[in-house]
């Protein structure tokens, strides 16, 4: 293929995926319609994830006023925010609760998008940007977990780092060095310490926010240019106008989500869900406390790692990641009914590992984790 042809093909491909001719008020607002059918609720999950992200940005910026990213002061500054800053406990709790809510919303949105076949041509780029957003959201969770510098934060991060490095044993040739290099680059020193905290902080407040803003821009642009995916095979019952009907409903969902978050943040400290020694400040001289686990949204990897051989779980995760990336092409001809079954299967696995992971572990291994 000649270069001119290649450029022409690429242009055609991109103009179909990002039809900028629709970038006007008429297409994006006035004439935009949303199908109404039994899975219409799936259209609200993306907006909900966006709302949680906005709450994260606002509360995160407020926390930045007081948080100190040093191993000597990080935990004390978090305690200061919680105990002495007016409204500090509320803001911090909102940030913590919203982080979990955002990950949950992103996961549900991904499964709904899959079940509704919203990745199909010409929405491949929207899907890919969504998968990237999922990865960035998990990275936010992983980097933010370390920042309070308490026992569970540091010890769980150490385990995470060891897991990355252990991948090297299963890679061929010079690739086996890559995980170690990645671990060293992220960690910054021999063990999890000041360099790690500085890097996680930089990733959490600078690198990842810029990355998510770029991906979110592309994702939202794709959605606005193409409109909502039909979602079901048959003709929808009716169509409703995006502006103002759907937007008002979407904002109502945001209002309900805000109130739920506010009640949780005011009434239930996020730390109450951990055993107390785990959120005591990290002490490098003391022994590792019992009960170190990652956050709930990593249980789908953590419990299988405790039960099955490491290589098997990592292979499974790599395959799952690859399948996510090529979903628009490998499931091109799959019916929505089959996709819904697959989505239910994935949701079942995630729920089982998140809610009953420990019981499943005891079933296979016995003893305590």
């Amino acid at each position: 293929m000649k270069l001119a042809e290649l450029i022409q093909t690429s242009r055609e491909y991109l103009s179909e995926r990002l039809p900028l001719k629709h970038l006007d008020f008429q297409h994006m607002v006035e004439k935009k319609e949303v199908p109404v059918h039994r899975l219409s609720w799936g259209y609200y999950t993306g907006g909900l994830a966006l709302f949680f992200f906005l709450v994260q940005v606002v509360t995160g910026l407020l926390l930045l006023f007081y948080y100190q990213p040093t191993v000597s002061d990080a935990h004390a500054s978090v305690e200061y925010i919680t105990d002495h800053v007016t409204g500090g406990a509320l803001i911090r709790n909102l940030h913590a609760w919203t982080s979990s809510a955002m990950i949950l919303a992103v996961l549900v949105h991904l499964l709904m998008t899959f079940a509704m076949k919203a990745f199909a041509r010409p929405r491949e780029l929207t899907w890919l940007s969504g998968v990237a957003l999922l990865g960035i959201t998990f990275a936010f969770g992983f980097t933010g977990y370390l920042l309070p510098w308490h026992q569970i934060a540091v010890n769980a991060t150490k385990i995470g780092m060891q897991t990355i490095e252990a991948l090297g044993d299963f890679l061929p040739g010079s690739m086996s060095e890559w995980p170690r290099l990645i671990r060293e680059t992220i960690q910054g020193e021999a063990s999890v310490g000041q360099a790690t905290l500085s890097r996680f902080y930089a990733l959490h407040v600078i690198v990842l926010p810029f990355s998510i803003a770029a991906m979110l821009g592309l994702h939202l642009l794709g959605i606005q240019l193409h409109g909502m995916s039909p979602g079901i095979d048959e003709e929808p019952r009716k169509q409703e106008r995006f502006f103002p009907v759907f937007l008002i409903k979407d904002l109502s969902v945001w209002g309900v989500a805000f109130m739920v978050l506010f009640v949780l943040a005011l009434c239930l400290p996020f730390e109450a869900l951990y055993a107390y020694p785990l959120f005591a400040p990290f002490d490098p001289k003391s022994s590792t406390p019992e009960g170190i686990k990652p956050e709930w949204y990593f249980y789908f990897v953590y419990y299988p790692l405790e039960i099955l051989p490491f290589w098997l779980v990592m292979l499974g995760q790599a395959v799952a990641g690859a399948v996510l990336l090529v979903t628009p092409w490998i499931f091109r001809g799959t019916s929505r009914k089959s996709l819904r079954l697959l989505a239910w299967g994935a949701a079942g696995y995630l729920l089982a590992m998140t809610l009953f992971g420990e019981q499943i572990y005891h079933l296979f291994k016995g003893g305590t984790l």
Partner: protein
Amino acid sequence: MKHPFRYRWGIFLTLLLWTSTMRLRAYPEFREFIVKHSQKPVNCAFCHQHSDGPEGMAAGQIGALNADQLQRLARARSAFEPGQAVDSPVLNPFGNSIIQRVGKKKFLELRLHPSELAPLLDPASDLDQDGIPDVKEYLEGTHPVNPNDGNPRMLFWVNLKRNLLPLAMTFSATVAGLFGLFHLLRGFDRAARLSITKEITTE
């Protein structure tokens, strides 16, 4: 009054020698009971200042105490009967409250039956003011001097009752804000439709 340097060191060394002849240790029997009863990991910071207990050189441990703190420690260690004021620098407020309530003598006896400590504690005491009595926190393995730690369900209901007014105000503000916003959006929509109708009519 300022003591001469050597005199102060004399007091310090005497106290250090005296305290070192005593059994300088946390009482793991209580920790073991809490872990067994609550099924939660608990460390020495439940009653002590330091998570590794009183022995050591870190802040809140005996090796780091100054002369004044060593005197306070000695006074606390001699509080054998209940009701005496206890202000040990190696104990946290919960640890001090236990010794003050039951006395050192009874406390040492209870090492063989740590489950019997709970009924002897003040049922109304709530040092961290989180709405959960210290006795309940002792039995459930949640920190009695940390208001952010406690049975999640109890904490939720206690805080919900305490914050009814701010919650009602926030709810009203959210509903009012959304009501106004929705009307604004509908207004924009009508204005846009009106201008389109006018354009068509003009054409």
